[in-house]
């Protein structure tokens, strides 16, 4: 830890040549964030003769992660959304030169005095669920309603065609499953074939898709104010229903019928539509719900492979591969028979 603190202080000094005496204290690694090593710390320095201090976050690429993504995707998302007023941390520095901390990283504001909830326990928000849920779905609607080009996100991302965005997403995650599976996956493969036989209608418009918008990936305070939305590393352009389906995935609700253990599904979808300006097509949403379980399986399967091969031995990688794969497999076998029967095949 001491070495990371010293190197981080040296980096901050390099980025701020008009200031001096940089110090990094209280550096500690945060549990979770398995796609990046995440550290919180306090930086202090002398500027204009006065001593200053700020709480910051360091997100460093791991040697292998739960989600294989480029750190600039996440940084660019923060950079695009921070000026819009959406609650996200202020992005400060993106560094790809490995000389500083051996691997690429970025530094952003630390939003203090708030907490994240674990999706793997019952009723994580208690009496705050209603208040947090309304903000959760409102912010997701706001993300979907943004013009990606107007906020400067489109330039940094591939712009898929509306009628094929489902295929691009499915091709990617099927590739992850095929490349990383440690054993055959009949449930995932059966679901994927159904998804290909029954493509969804194209979205009304292409939106920014957070990619991992769910319980556990935002911080809230004791009064139930949603303070910041995190973990944008899977952010991309696509069908905004992808985010709804992922946020409402039963994995994040621990047997609670309320998506993410927050508010009722109908109310959640209504808030989302109001703030995105997009009407939800239930047939399309059903497709994206099945897709979400497949995407989840791909992530958990990849985590298991990284753990098995010793590339990332964080216990959360093994747990994800055991527990989350189990949940998503059972979810799919509960859904697929009805979906298969509803197909018009002789």
């Amino acid at each position, binding site marked *: 830890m001491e070495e990371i603190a010293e190197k981080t202080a040296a980096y901050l000094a390099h980025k701020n040549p008009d200031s001096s005496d940089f110090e990094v204290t209280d550096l*500690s*690694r*945060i*549990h*979770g964030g398995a796609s990046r090593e995440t550290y919180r710390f306090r930086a202090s320095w002398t500027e204009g003769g006065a001593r200053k201090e700020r709480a910051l976050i360091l997100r460093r690429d791991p040697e292998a992660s739960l989600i294989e993504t480029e750190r600039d995707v996440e940084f660019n998302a923060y950079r695009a959304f921070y000026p819009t007023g959406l609650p996200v941390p202020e992005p400060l520095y993106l560094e790809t030169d490995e000389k500083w901390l051996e691997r690429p990283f970025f530094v952003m504001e630390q939003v203090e005095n708030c907490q994240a909830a674990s999706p*793997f*326990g*019952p009723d994580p928000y208690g009496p705050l669920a209603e208040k947090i849920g309304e903000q959760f779905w409102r912010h997701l609607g706001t993300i979907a309603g943004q013009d990606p080009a107007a906020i400067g996100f489109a330039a940094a991302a591939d712009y898929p065609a509306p009628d094929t965005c489902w295929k691009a997403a499915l091709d990617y995650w099927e590739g992850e499953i095929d490349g990383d599976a440690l*054993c*055959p*996956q*009949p*449930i995932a*493969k*059966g679901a994927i*074939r159904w998804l290909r*036989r029954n493509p969804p209608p194209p979205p009304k418009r292409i939106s920014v898709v957070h990619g991992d918008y769910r319980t556990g990936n935002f911080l809230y305070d004791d009064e139930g104010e949603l303070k910041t939305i995190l973990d944008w590393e899977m952010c991309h352009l696509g069908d905004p229903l992808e985010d709804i389906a992922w946020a409402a995935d039963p994995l994040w609700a*621990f*047997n609670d019928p309320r998506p993410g253990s927050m508010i009722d599904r109908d109310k959640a979808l209504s808030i989302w539509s109001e703030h995105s300006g997009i009407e939800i097509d239930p047939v399309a949403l059903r497709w994206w719900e099945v897709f979400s379980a497949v995407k989840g399986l791909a992530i958990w399967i990849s985590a298991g492979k990284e753990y098995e091969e010793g590339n990332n031995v*964080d*216990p*959360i990688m*093994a*747990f994800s591969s*055991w*527990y989350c794969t*189990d949940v998503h*497999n*059972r979810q799919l*076998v*509960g859904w*697929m*028979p009805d979906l*298969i*029967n509803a197909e018009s*095949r*002789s």
Partner: protein
Amino acid sequence: MKPDVQTVMMRSFERILTDIAPHLCSEYAVGSSSVIGLMMFQTATEFERAADIRVQENAAMRGLFDEAVGMLPTGELRTRVEEAASSSDPSLKISELDQANDALSALLIELQAHAETMEGTAARKLETKIWDELARAATARRLPHPITG
């Protein structure tokens, strides 16, 4: 081996959660040790049932192959399905049961994909039976959670 593996895993899980994790001072260490404890809890269940689950799954897949053989046209897939239907598990070692399970599962994927391209009631029934077995197997493999059991 006494005490039983299940007992040791459960006691260790309790120890980690109540006596060890709360006394660690690093947030990352607390989180990681709790996850390790949770996996010990799940290992206790898996150790007891692992062989049984695999033997049952392998037998069920062989049963599906046996039923499907008559529906398949003469060819390479039919030959492999026929051979798999009459295969058997080499031993009760988990690694060897897993190896057999992987081979049978890979063939099941092929059979299911093939059935989806076939027309007729028999093909639809076979699809249904395959999904029923996948559901049964997934339910049998359900991992316990300390809160829900």
